């Protein structure tokens, strides 16, 4: 965007919102909104503390494991659904239901099934991320150029060759789009899991800080979480742009 002839760098608007936050905080309008400067100072204070690093480790572990399973199960399932009518008919209703279902309500069921530990948190994270990954992989495979499929067949591709030499790559732009949205949903999943299942990780910090009205601490953790999610999402968006050059040429 341009303003008075100057080119504004990306996300300049954050400066305005940051200033507004600072003003609201300093005006003392609400106890729940400390000034941004205080939040940032607190952030640097707690970022090196053992409690924070333990929380970061626990959250990252559950998040990475959850996303890993969502990707490894979700992409092949989506590709199979896009390629096989029977599997598609069987699974599509469930995928659509779970995509829009309030998964938070399912968490107590998971706790009964899988206990109160890390396992349930990882499964919650996977459940938040996997459905959109499946749907996007499926959509990606379904739009593959008909003649590319014919080409693989006519040159004698085995089903496995066709799968990982043609279908996967041809659907890659959509698959990456699904993974990006899935990762953002997984952030929600991991925090909800940590809040509801067992109070560990960032969930435990949120719980601790809000219960003790340490609002600057609370916001600092939230800012860290937002920054992490944003970075991962931007990284995937970058990958997506790298492969989408051919999306239009398929």
């Amino acid at each position, binding site marked *: 965007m341009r303003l008075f002839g100057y080119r504004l760098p990306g996300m300049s608007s954050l400066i305005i919102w940051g200033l507004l936050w600072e003003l609201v905080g300093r005006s003392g309008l609400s106890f729940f909104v400390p000034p941004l400067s205080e939040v940032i100072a607190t952030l640097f204070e707690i970022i090196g503390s053992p409690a924070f690093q333990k929380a970061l480790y626990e959250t990252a572990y559950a998040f990475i494991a959850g996303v890993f399973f969502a990707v490894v199960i979700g992409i092949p399932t989506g590709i199979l659904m896009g390629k096989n009518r029977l599997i598609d008919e069987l699974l599509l209703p469930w995928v659509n239901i779970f995509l829009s279902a309030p998964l938070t309500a399912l968490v107590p069921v998971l706790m009964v099934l899988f206990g109160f530990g890390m396992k349930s948190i990882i499964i919650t994270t996977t459940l938040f991320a996997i459905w959109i990954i499946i749907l996007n992989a499926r959509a990606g495979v379904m739009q593959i150029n008909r003649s590319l499929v014919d080409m693989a*067949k*006519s*040159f004698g591709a085995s089903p496995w060759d066709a799968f990982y030499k043609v279908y996967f*790559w041809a659907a890659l732009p959509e698959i990456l789009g699904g993974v990006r949205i899935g990762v953002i949903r997984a952030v929600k999943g991991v925090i909800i899991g940590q809040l509801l299942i067992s109070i560990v990780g960032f969930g435990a910090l949120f719980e601790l800080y809000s219960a003790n009205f340490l609002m600057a601490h609370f916001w600092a953790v939230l800012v860290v979480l937002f920054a992490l999610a944003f970075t991962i999402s931007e990284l995937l968006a970058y990958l997506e742009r790298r492969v989408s050059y*051919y999306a239009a*040429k398929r």
Partner: protein
Amino acid sequence: MVMPQTRAAFGRAGAAGAADIAVSVRNISKNYGAVEALKNLTLDFPRGQLTSLLGPSGCGKTTLLKIIAGLLDPTAGEVEVGGRAVTGPGPDRAFVFQDFALLPWANVLRNVAFGLELRGVAKSEREAIAANYIAQVGLAGFEASFPHELSGGMRQRVGLARALAVDSEVLLMDEPFSAVDEQTRRKFQEDLLALVAQENKTFLFVTHSIEEAVYVSDQIAILLPRPSRVSDIIRPEGLRDKDPATIRRDPEYLDIVDEIWAKLRSYVE
């Protein structure tokens, strides 16, 4: 009506008597639900020659080509390639696609070698073969380019090189030049004549252009629609031994083009 002429004995390499049939289509029917796309169609394709399937759109010429390729199953009838019944795609046939069907994420070398890659040929061997055919279609120096960096004409040369690289007896070409510009198309047609003369392969060529069919074909099968059947087989006898540069001025060429148009015009809306 089938034209009674027989081919001159000293024709193109590989031309032989009526017995030497590379691809034979027997009583093929293809229905899509209640729609009859092809009905009881019988046609022979002589070895070492180029046969065009020509007809108005919707006459089922691409359907017939895909049945021969083994990509579609006929409702009834059978196809034989080199005396063996076709049950699916096979290494005796290679396909050239109208929209090129290249892998956008692979460079020219891998695209041309892809048919060999699927057949399990070792990397160094298939890349050597591919490089050879890339040079043959005039793309030497573009081995590392990606399809989106090439013009439409160059992309189809990649598609052609890929089909040649697997060295199958039969080349199936589905309107290969319809997505490239007019000047490139003319160059392609000249190159195709040279290719048919030098490679001992059987070419099946689907086109909707009368001029193109007469220019490149040893035999033209005219298909008429609803339901599709072979209406005529025309063999442009005298043209094949002429200089490609003069064919379009040849009276025989002009007569055959007119003759075909007279047959087809009533089927074109």
